């Protein structure tokens, strides 16, 4: 990820507002700037306004007010420039029926202006890079969700682009190929591509994101590097444990995902929690545990879920 902090932003969004005709305020004063080579994460719960934001960047939706520029060019008055300059992987698993995996990649390259020879070369490169060889003649209709996703990812990067917008790029993909996708995104970043990444997969994305924005209710509620956002929860630690029996959690533990044994607790309670863990282990109720710094999941929870809980409680 070749982050160029001093450079002019590739994508710059200022005070973007989108109100739909039915009155729904989907984006409420969004401002952000993506620098060259940066991988920028967009996180948020369903309905936070991420997709609306992406659709405006792609030029398929007109903002109510505000500005969007790509390399200094106004995308609102010139949406054709967005289509020429942005590679896009949509979230949905749309059905391209009998189109084969290799054909999708080749047509995507051709429709983006590559010559027949270049499109064929790029198709072969991407099939090899994403380990799609055994699926190259599989129709999209009969391909698994993961293979369709990989084919869509390959189609998005079939030609060089100024900005890559990826909406949940690793959904449905098996762990090995998922790693290949993340490595490819990282490599594209090193080559100078700027990536806008919409994802819920925080644990995976954390390693590849330079900066992120957390959206809720159409606004950006937090923005920064993963490290800087951790300061939101610096006073907390994350406990992941595997229980072998029924144990009542220590009162100081805040359930993050109790089903998977993930809790947060205040640093000042570390001794008490350690004692409780030792007691549980000696009683044969605890197989394993790990205490560490909070993850992006925790930051996300602190930025979105906890304020909502507090709001509901008040």
């Amino acid at each position: 990820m070749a982050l160029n902090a001093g450079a002019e932003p590739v994508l710059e969004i200022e005070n973007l507002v989108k109100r739909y005709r039915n009155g729904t305020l989907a984006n409420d004063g969004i401002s952000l700037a993506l620098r060259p080579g940066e991988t920028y994460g967009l996180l948020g719960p369903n309905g936070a306004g991420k997709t609306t934001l992406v659709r405006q960047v792609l030029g398929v939706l007109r903002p109510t007010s505000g500005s969007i520029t790509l390399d200094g060019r106004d995308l609102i008055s010139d949406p054709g420039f967005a289509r020429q300059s942005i590679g896009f992987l949509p979230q949905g698993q749309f059905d391209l029926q009998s189109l084969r995996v290799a054909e999708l990649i080749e047509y995507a390259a051709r429709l983006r202006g590559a010559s027949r020879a270049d499109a064929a070369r790029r198709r072969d490169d991407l099939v090899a890079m994403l380990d799609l060889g055994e699926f190259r003649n599989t129709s999209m209709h009969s391909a698994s969700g993961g293979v369709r996703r990989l084919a869509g990812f390959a189609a998005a990067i079939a030609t060089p682009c100024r900005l890559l917008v990826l909406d949940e790029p690793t959904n449905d993909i098996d762990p090995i190929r998922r790693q290949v996708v993340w490595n490819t995104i990282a490599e594209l970043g090193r080559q100078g591509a700027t990536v806008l990444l919409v994802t819920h997969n925080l644990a995976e994305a954390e390693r590849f994101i330079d900066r992120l924005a957390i959206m809720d209710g159409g606004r950006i509620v937090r923005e920064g590097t993963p490290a800087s956002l951790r300061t939101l929860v610096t006073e907390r630690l994350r406990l992941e444990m595997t229980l072998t029996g029924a144990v009542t959690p220590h009162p100081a533990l805040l359930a993050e995902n109790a089903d998977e044994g993930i809790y947060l607790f205040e640093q000042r309670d570390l001794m008490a929690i350690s004692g409780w863990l030792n007691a549980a282990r000696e009683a044969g109720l605890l197989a394993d545990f790990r205490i560490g710094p909070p993850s992006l999941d925790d930051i996300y929870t602190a930025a979105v879920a906890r304020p909502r809980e507090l709001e509901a409680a008040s």
Partner: protein
Amino acid sequence: MKAIRQYYDLVAMQMNSMRGDNVFIAILQVALSLGLVVGMGYLIPNISKPTAMFLVTGTATQAFVTTGLVMLPQMLSQAKADGRLEYFLTLPISREGYLLSQITMVAITSFPAVFFTVIFGAWHYDLSFSVNPGFALVMVLCVLSLAGVGVAMAMYIREPTVVNAVTQLIIFYVLFFSPVLLPAAQLPPALQFTSKLAPPTYAADGVRATLTDLPGTNLGKDLVLMSGFAAGSIALSAFAIRRRG
């Protein structure tokens, strides 16, 4: 040049994405048309040659209606609902070129049925058709006017289920209540009036005017009105597909 290449690629992509279905649709269209030609004949004992000609040319037009006004809007509406259309709109392609590629698919899947219906009808009822030089133009305008209206329906009707219902209504109307398969004079005045607003009326009349010597056709009027329906519906669709919410 770039636009032509894009159009070619879009048609090829569509053809490949429907490679199995296209053949099935074309065969089904041929079978339906031949079935109509034979089946409707059973309703009319001792069918006269002019009536048979009317039936065969109406059935040939019906093939365009089935693909252009029924299947195409259903497919496009589904593409709109599942995000496929929006994906294409994010590509650096001409939006009108995309719509034209969809309309081209209608031509590719309906021409075999038109061709086989006329050939089979001529053989089955011992008819002789004479092809007027305007026939090719009528074929093109049949596709553009009917598929154009089909595309506009898909663009302006929000829900795929509503599109499906409307297309069922259209096929029902065209089969039983329009001058495509029934002579206009046999329809009640209200249906004679509505038929004047329906593009299949002029498509059927144009096919009759360029293949038969049946009386009462008006090729000039057909060409003008089909061109109007084509231009109007495609312009409306282009406006809709360019609109950005």
